[in-house]
């Protein structure tokens, strides 16, 4: 499973972008990310979740690509969303990916 993550906007306007291959992460991190992706029903979410009113909120773009045993072909799904509109499980996933992305950028 591969994850392409991007966070932009916010008061600071700092863009953070990173790509992860789940199997290459620490086991605990990989399990947590996999569990949050499942809990958020990521592959069932619409491609765009509108942000609603407000300024300086984060914007996220998240792509998850997978080919599990039960997938006849590779599956890829992208969701673009504002932070206020992201479901609770997604909020946890986004925070986790932000920390991982920052760690990747610092290496």
């Amino acid at each position, binding site marked *: 499973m591969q994850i392409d993550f991007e966070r932009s906007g*916010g*008061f600071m306007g700092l863009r953070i972008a990173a790509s992860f291959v789940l199997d290459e992460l620490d086991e605990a991190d990989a399990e947590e990310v996999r569990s949050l992706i499942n809990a958020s029903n990521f592959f069932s979410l619409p491609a765009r979740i509108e942000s609603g009113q407000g300024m300086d909120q984060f914007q996220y773009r998240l792509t998850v690509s997978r080919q599990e045993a039960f997938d006849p072909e590779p599956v890829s799904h992208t969701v673009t969303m504002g932070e206020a509109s992201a479901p609770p499980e997604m909020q946890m996933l986004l925070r986790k990916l932000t920390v991982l992305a920052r760690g990747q950028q610092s290496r």
Partner: protein
Amino acid sequence: MAYPTGPEHPLQCILPPHMLQNIAEHGTAEQRRWAVATLATSEQFRGQRTASAQFPSLAFRAVAVGKQRTIFNADNQTNLPGRTVRSEGDDPTGDAAVDEAYDYSGATYDLYKEVYERNSIDNQGLPLRSTVHYGQGYDNAFWNGQQMVYGDGDEDLPADDRLFNRFTLSIDIVGHELTHGVTQYEAKLVYYEQSGAMNESMSDVFGSLVKQRQLNQTAADADWIIGQGLFTSKVNGVGIRSMKAPGTAYDDPVLGKDPQPAHMNDYKNIDYDNGGVHINSGIPNHAFYVVARELGGFAWEKAGRIWYVALRDKLQAKSNFQDSANLTFLVAGQLYGAGSIEQQAVRTGWSEVGITVSSGNGSTETPDLEGCRELLIRVLGGSR
């Protein structure tokens, strides 16, 4: 005869209140209804509440008086607004985030009230609501359409990994967020590409002016940094943005380099951050800085007033950088005289970022004025 009303109609932006009052008092029944509706709609959508005080008989809603601050604590959750921890007139709590949100929203209110005679965000005394300690590891501050919200930065990470302090720490951040509210009630600049970057720039401009006024600094004394103190010592940077030298605020191995351009030649067409609203805002930010530098003295007095009047009366939802240049130039002429030092400074400011002021057809003012005249002739032509 039916007269159009609504927030988009050009008459609302142009007809002075006294003219509308005349029509409301002396026109035919239909003209009076139109004038009252126009005044009311203008009041509601444009925030020019001074008209309310002049026409009490029109029964607008009551105007609140004085600062009305309330600070809430989200206790590191994300439910808004959270529990009330400090209300107007209460003593300091000892919680730095709570007390900074209280003091700095007060300083922002004071700038708008004492310098620009504006009564709070909506010019009608809207209570100022701020929530602090929002979320966990929340490295942001935002305006959600109703209130300000501040995170604690990286409080959830080990000390050695922290990049950001609490977001109430910089007074200009508080001024920035409150000004998003002012823009929401006035020009309503669409939060996308150039109009969105103007929205962001307005927040940086007045955020910086709140700080400069608090410190009693002239334009020459001010650092023109947005978010000074927000970075921990782990970051190589002086703040989030520099209005004096966009693109130089930070250059860090983790965060990268400040991406703001200072000139139209470096404008960035990008598909994130709502089309780069926090990035291309460096261009109008720098234009404002140059105007303030040219005029000298306290920047909130002349440069700030020109920008404020443009935001309140001239800019529209889709105003781009060129429109903003033309309209600030227009306002400078109206406030200080055509060809005045102030108007020349505005021309210089925009010129230094690569935008040539056009006071002719390029101004969004022209078609509105013509539309206004036409409709006014129709209105007055049928009266009495």
